[in-house]
């Protein structure tokens, strides 16, 4: 499974990587550090599109929300499940990101174990959607 992470915070990227290493399902992780880099990568021809994209909202240059809207507007990128990964947000903001097209919303947990569990859950469910032919448009998950 190909996973793409867009986050500017070094420490968070480290946590993410270490968490994925502990997960049973085979995953292939790639990291970008800001919105512009992300869009450039995704729009390059010939790349293998990720199975899930984890997107931090607070990034320099281009914010996560802008990337989200842009990706959902592109036909060939629209079907990638996108997980928004953010520190804090009000219920209203969470709902807003879902409305804008996000499939998953993750509030960054403080406990490493919780992070592992969350990522595992996401990957598993995503795989279920993939293999059981479930409707990806209804794929909404808030953790």
């Amino acid at each position: 499974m190909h996973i793409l992470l867009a986050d500017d915070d070094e420490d968070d990227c480290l946590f993410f990587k270490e968490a994925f290493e502990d997960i049973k399902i085979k995953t292939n992780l790639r990291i970008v550090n800001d919105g512009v880099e992300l869009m450039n990568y995704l729009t390059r021809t010939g790349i293998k599109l990720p199975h899930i994209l984890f997107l931090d909202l607070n990034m320099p240059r281009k914010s996560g929300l802008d990337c989200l809207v842009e990706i959902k507007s592109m036909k060939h990128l629209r079907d990638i499940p996108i997980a928004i990964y953010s520190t804090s947000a009000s219920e209203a903001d969470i709902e807003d990101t879902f409305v804008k097209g996000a499939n998953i919303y993750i509030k960054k947990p403080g406990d490493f174990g919780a992070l592992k569990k969350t990522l595992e859950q996401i990957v598993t469910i995503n795989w279920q959607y993939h293999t059981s032919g479930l409707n990806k448009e209804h794929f909404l998950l808030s953790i």
Partner: protein
Amino acid sequence: MKLYVKFNVTATCKKVLQEQLDKFQLKYDLLGFNEVEINEDISPAGMKKIVDGFSQYGIEIIDRPKNLLIQKIKDAITELVYMEDRLPVVKISTYLSEKLGYGYGYISNLFSEVTFTSIENYIILQKTERAKQLIITNGLTITEIAWKLNYSSVAHFSNQFKSATGLTPTAFQRIINKRREALINVEID
């Protein structure tokens, strides 16, 4: 104009399968839901064409018996969850083992091994998906949906939905509606 559509998955898939096979002018018999007996030999190249043709529709040829069984389990569960009427009160272990002709222990172990989830979790997943479908078609209240899907109470239903998706049923409904509105606005613009 808005149309709300419901899919009779079985009929649709069967039709597609038949159309695809007819395209290749093959002599075949349909045995049950997902077995096809092709009454002639096919070359590897021909096979590839069939596979390509199938893949457009998301149809895969299962070539391992294990996967076949898994698929049967999934189909049985799907059939159960997507019943028109209220879901029957039935012990899932008995139902599956009777339907598929294997012991429940064997079935559930195999399922977890291959899919990395338990059957219970898969059932919850499918029920949640059906709930989402029912919520979106806007015809029923949350209470009615809970009853239809055989939950003991609305709270139980909300709870399970919330643990599965992280959102309450009404929040889910709200989000989908707002997404629709946004799409309509984009089209108008």
